[in-house]
């Protein structure tokens, strides 16, 4: 029982950071109908921004989070302007967006390898060593931080989307862009906000990930797991992304704990493939009709 609870706690922790990454995929998909595969690279840049904020600038860790979030929000917005806006202006189909996103991702990853180098970097120790014990359950301090920070960010995002005028405008635009412009909603503004939010959350996720593991140029590839979570939950759906991320986090840790870590990714992709066959729109995804 204790072992199960332990896995549950670990699963929630990893699931929460998947969620932080997955909502970035989902937000962009909900408005623009394509999977922004450059999102992982933005997460990676966030990890580096956090790392250098602490090591070069000597900022305290909480300021490093803010610096990384602001930096990646800016990067995401600039990326949209440079890479996707020209496609939007030409009314390109989604395939061009996906290819452009992959190109941007390859460029960013290799740019980092060429300039900073491929060697992994360790964040300075932020949290005290040794887990916090709750009875028999041991909770790593960084895991706890991951869960708490992710939860706060996600709660803020949900409040923003559900209770503010701009949040409602984002939902309206995701449902039907044409109708939303007829209400006076500026699509460019909505896209700007969505990339800025997705980017900021990517930065925070990147720093958390870097603190738990290491900072290296291929972090973006690993965050593909969060993309699985977004697809599993239903691309374009925020609650779907959260649910998918938590389920994936739990499944991964349970598989690691009870079977073997070697099966972890196998099972993750198995879930993805099964979902795509059985229910391509995901648990809570919007179906094609909604976008007509």
């Amino acid at each position, binding site marked *: 029982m204790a072992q199960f609870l332990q896995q549950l706690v670990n699963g929630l922790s990893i699931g929460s950071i998947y969620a932080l990454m997955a909502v970035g995929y989902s937000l962009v998909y909900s408005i623009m109908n394509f999977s922004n595969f450059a999102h992982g690279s933005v997460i990676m840049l966030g990890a580096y921004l956090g790392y250098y904020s602490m090591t070069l600038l000597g900022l305290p860790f909480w300021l490093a989070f803010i610096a990384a979030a602001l930096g990646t929000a800016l990067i995401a917005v600039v990326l949209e302007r440079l890479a996707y806006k020209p496609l939007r202006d030409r009314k390109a189909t989604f395939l061009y967006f996906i290819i452009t996103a992959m190109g941007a991702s390859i460029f960013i990853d290799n740019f980092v390898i060429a300039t900073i180098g491929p060697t992994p970097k360790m964040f300075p120790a932020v949290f005290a060593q040794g887990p916090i014990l709750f009875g028999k359950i041991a909770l790593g301090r960084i895991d706890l931080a991951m869960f708490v920070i992710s939860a706060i960010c996600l709660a803020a995002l949900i409040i923003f989307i559900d209770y503010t*005028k701009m949040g*409602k405008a984002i939902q309206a635009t995701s449902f039907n862009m044409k*109708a939303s412009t*007829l*209400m006076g909603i500026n699509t460019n503004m909505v896209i700007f906000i969505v990339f800025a939010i997705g980017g900021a959350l990517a930065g925070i996720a990147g720093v958390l990930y870097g603190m738990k593991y290491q900072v290296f140029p291929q972090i973006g590839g690993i965050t593909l797991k969060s993309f699985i979570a977004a697809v599993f939950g239903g691309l374009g759906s925020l609650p779907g992304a959260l649910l998918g991320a938590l389920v994936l986090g739990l499944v991964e840790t349970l598989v690691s704990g009870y079977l073997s870590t070697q099966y972890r990714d196998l099972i993750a992709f198995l879930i993805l493939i099964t979902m795509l066959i059985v229910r391509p729109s995901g648990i809570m995804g919007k179906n094609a009709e909604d976008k007509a």
Partner: protein
Amino acid sequence: MLSVRDLHVSYGGIRALRGVSIDVHKGEIITIIGANGAGKSTLLNAISGILKPSQGEITFNGAPLKREPSKNVKLGICHVPEGRLVFANLTVKDNLALGAYLRTDRKKIASDLERVYELFPRIKERSSQIAGTLSGGEQQMLAMGRALMTDGDLVLMDEPSLGLAPILVHTVFQIIKEILRLGKTILLVEQNANMALKIADRAYVLEQGLIVKTGPAADIASDPAIRAAYLGSKSVAGG
């Protein structure tokens, strides 16, 4: 109020409008009738800015309209699109609130909301419901109410009776007359020419991207050629 001059619109290799000119004066109901594919919706979409004309000009209260729908909303164009396009993922109340997205005059917004609820009591009853659960007729009313919340002076209506039961078609046309009484001007595109000509002041007949006839609605309705082409199955829907 609205003046369209020599408007050409092409998309997907089709020349949908080939030199259309129309005028709409304040307080009028103008209807555009024509067959499916004649270019009626294209005309409305070009006016509101959804489609970009290749040639011609559109002026509203003397100033050229923008090529960006959200900017034209601010100028007073409100477009009830074909197929209603209500935000089915949001509540009825949220849909109406989004109509007032650009407005900041809270008091006027509140009184406009009351007016919309008076006009559409059914919508008021369902204000906390998700819009996707409404019936087709209710969605049409919500789409109209949402457009009214923009407080635009010129209401563009694209096939408001499409897909509705005959009894609802009648209601929708009654409501259009009431919207006129609120001080709005209406440009109505309809396949149901019978009903449209009954409530309109003037009409334009659009055929394959060209205006082929125009005049007072009563004259158009009694024109033998028009009767044969568009009013053939006389008064199925309410007359």
